[in-house]
C-alpha cells in the first residue's frame, strides 16, 4: 500500500498552443519542461539538437516553461521573452539564442537579443513590463508540476516521464524503446 507505482503522465496533451518542431504525425513526441537559466537545461540543449538531427521526421519536439524563479533570478523574464518572441512568430530562434547566451540573461541582454532577432523591441519591452506572458509561463509550470515534472529539465516521451539520464545515448535508447512499443502508447 505504501509503495504504489506512481503514474507520471503528461496531463496536458500537445496542442496548437505549444511550441512544436517536427511533424504532427511523428511516432515520437519529446516534451521538455525547462528553465533558460538552469545549467542542466543548458547542457541538454545541444543534446536535444543532436537528437532531432538523428531522428529526423520520427521525432516531434515540444518545449514548455518550468522556470525555477527562486534560485534563478532571470528565469522568469527569459521565459517571458521567449514567449514574446513567439508572439512575433520567432519562438525557436529566441529559444536557441537564450540557451547559447545562458551566461547573460539580465533584462538588458534579453532586449538585445530581441533586437538581434529583428523583433519589435518596443513591443517585447512593453509585454515584459506588463507581464503579458506571465500567465502562459505559469500555466506551463503548473501543467509540468501536475504531470510529475520533478526538476529541470524534465522530459516526457510519448506522454510518460523519462526518469533516466538525459545524455544523448540514454535519451536515444528511451526514444527507440518507446517507438518499438508502437503507436498504442502514443498520445
Amino acid at each position: 500500500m505504501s509503495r504504489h507505482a506512481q503514474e507520471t503522465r503528461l496531463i496536458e496533451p500537445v496542442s496548437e498552443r505549444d511550441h512544436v518542431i517536427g511533424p504532427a504525425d511523428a511516432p515520437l513526441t519529446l516534451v521538455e519542461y525547462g528553465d533558460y537559466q538552469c545549467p542542466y537545461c543548458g547542457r541538454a540543449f545541444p543534446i536535444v539538437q543532436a537528437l532531432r538531427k538523428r531522428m529526423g521526421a520520427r521525432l516531434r519536439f515540444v518545449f514548455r516553461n518550468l522556470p525555477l524563479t527562486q534560485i534563478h533570478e532571470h528565469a522568469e523574464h527569459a521565459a517571458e521573452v521567449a514567449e514574446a518572441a513567439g508572439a512575433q512568430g520567432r519562438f525557436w530562434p529566441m529559444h536557441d539564442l537564450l540557451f547559447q547566451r545562458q551566461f547573460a540573461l539580465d533584462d538588458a541582454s534579453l532586449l538585445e537579443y530581441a533586437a538581434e532577432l529583428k523583433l519589435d523591441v518596443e513591443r517585447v519591452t512593453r509585454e515584459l513590463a506588463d507581464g503579458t506572458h506571465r500567465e502562459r509561463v505559469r500555466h506551463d509550470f503548473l501543467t509540468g508540476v501536475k504531470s510529475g515534472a520533478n526538476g529541470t529539465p524534465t522530459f516526457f516521451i510519448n506522454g510518460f516521464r523519462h526518469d533516466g539520464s538525459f545524455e544523448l545515448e540514454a535519451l536515444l535508447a528511451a526514444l527507440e524503446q518507446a517507438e518499438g512499443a508502437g503507436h498504442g502508447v502514443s498520445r
Partner: protein
Amino acid sequence: MSKGQEGQEAPDFTLPAADGTRVTLRSFRGKPVILAFYPADWSPVCGDQMTLYNEVLPEFERYGAQLLGISVDGVWCHRAFTKDRRLKFPLLADFEPKGDVARRYDVYRSADGTTERSLFVIDAAGIIRWRYVSPIDVNPGADGILNALESLTDARLPA
C-alpha cells in the same frame, strides 16, 4: 502493527528547525500538513526536490497547507542548505535521537542511516490521508501532493 499509515493519526513530534525554533506537528492542527522526508541535504536529487517544492509553495498555500521538510541532517547543515537554495519553508532536523521521527512513520532506512524519500499529507484533524514512498533515487515531484490536497476538498480555501 505498521505505523504512519493512511487513515491513522499522524504521530506527533517536536523537532528543531533550521532557524533555531522548535516545530511541533500538533501546532498545525486546523490546516493540512505536508511532510517531506528526504535522505540528505545537498545530494543532487534532494536539491531538486526541495527546490521544486519551494517553487510550488504558492500552490500548496492555496490549500492552506504547511510544508515541512525532514532529514537526519543537523540544524547547521539545514541552515546552510536553506540559505543556498533560498528555501521558504522549514527544514527539520531528525538528528537526535537520530531518525526517531522517521521510525515513527516507518520510513527509516537502518542500512543507510537516512530516511526514505517519502511524502505524507496530513489533514486538518491530524489524520494521514496520503502516504507515498518513492524509489530512493527518484524525485517524486509534487503531483501526488497536489492530488492529495485536492482530495481534501473541505480543507480547500477559496482561490
